[in-house]
């Protein structure tokens, strides 16, 4: 065995022994330095009695940044546990599946908002966004300040009707109402450059998105999405309840203006085309 391999095996043996001797059985879950944020007390309420959704929300279970950090409880990395609340797979129509399959890996990559620097839009902002959202909620108004690309959205809560001929917006045209303690936002009229998921799942001009927001406790925000798109989907798709957690700290500036990846990926696409 080569010296460095012997050294490696020795290290592993020492580390394994240390683990056995120093970590009591059943106590491993206490060793994570970044854990799942507990629910906290009851959710605050607005003067009109509805839960106040105001807060700096993190797309994970920890209420703080988790990417690239050590000692994170795996349960704190996600917004839902697929074993507890599995998320159904969208059922796309055959022509839509064929369209996505025709994309090369690089074309698929270039379609992603994280690469092309276009706004994620609704509902992707809740489904494919690793950055935080600051929400400011008052009677009649919900303001969402998305850290990614410094996007923002204003949702009026006065029950105004949806437009008959909506202008296509990245965040759509929205109306909202309450169902008990749940705020239900319905939106139509989306820019056709947005994708539901960063896997090529595109949408048609008949896309209708329903967002259901609830705050069951101080530290938790639950967002559930329904995507209805009869031109693309066989049937409406409903997300798992995604749990965002309350954090603090700054909402940082993030303008995507210097993406060198675009140049690098375009070179790759040229190579792909030559290979065809």
């Amino acid at each position, binding site marked *: 065995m080569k*010296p*460095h391999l012997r*050294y*490696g095996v020795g*290290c*592993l043996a020492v*580390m394994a022994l*240390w*683990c056995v001797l*120093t*970590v009591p059985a059943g106590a491993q879950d206490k*060793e*994570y*330095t*970044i854990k799942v944020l507990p629910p906290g007390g009851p959710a605050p309420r607005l003067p009109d009695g509805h839960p106040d959704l105001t807060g700096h929300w993190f*797309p994970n279970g920890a209420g*703080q*940044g*988790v*990417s*690239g*950090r*050590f*000692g*994170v409880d795996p349960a704190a*990395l996600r917004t839902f546990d697929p074993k507890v609340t599995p998320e159904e797979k969208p059922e796309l129509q055959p022509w839509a599946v064929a369209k996505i399959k025709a994309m090369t*890996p*690089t074309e*698929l*990559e270039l379609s*992603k908002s*994280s*690469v092309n*620097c276009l706004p994620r839009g609704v509902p992707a902002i809740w489904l494919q966004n*690793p*950055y935080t959202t600051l929400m400011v909620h008052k009677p009649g108004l919900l303001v969402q300040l998305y*850290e990614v690309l410094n996007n923002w959205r204003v949702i009026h809560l006065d029950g105004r009707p949806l437009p008959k001929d909506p202008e296509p917006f990245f965040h759509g045209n929205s109306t909202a109402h309450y169902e008990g303690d749940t705020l239900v936002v319905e939106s139509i009229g989306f820019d056709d450059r947005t994708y539901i998921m*960063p896997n090529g799942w595109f949408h048609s001009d008949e896309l209708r998105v329903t967002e259901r927001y609830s705050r069951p406790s101080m530290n938790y925000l639950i967002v559930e999405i329904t995507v209805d798109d009869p031109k693309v989907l066989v049937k409406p798709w409903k997300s798992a309840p995604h749990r965002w957690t309350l954090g603090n*700290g700054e909402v*940082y500036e*993030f*303008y*995507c*203006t*210097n*993406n*060198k*990846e675009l140049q*690098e*990926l375009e*070179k*790759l696409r040229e*190579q792909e085309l030559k290979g065809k």
Partner: protein
Amino acid sequence: MQAASGAAFKAMEGSMKILKGLGTAAMACGVFLLAAPSFAHHSFDAEFDGQNCKEFTGTLTKLDWQSPHPYFYMDIKDANGKVQNWSFQTYAPITLRRNGTERQVFIENIGKQVWVRGCIARNGKSNYAAAGTMKFPDGVLRQVGQLQN
């Protein structure tokens, strides 16, 4: 390039130093030493070869702190002793800030020797890689980007 040769041994030495520094049983267990994966900003594999990752030691020469990805540059000696300037992509600035690798950390270490493990670009661009883990002279292991293996 002072990469791969003897790199595994050096990395192991470095890891042990880190363990001493951290000094907790939790950190001693390899499972806890795995940094949390980044939420996929994009598909790493589309641009970088996760099966072609190497270790680099050289002098940090420059930082471009920008969105969506900062880039840092290093002078690295190749196998013939000739200095090559490499560029490395990192996580987004927000992600680096939130895991404790502030812009200032890079700036304070320009001109100093650093260690990086990174994966090579797929499109053939020379001397370009995605940084994964990194150590400045303080010896602290930092996750500055995604690694695939």
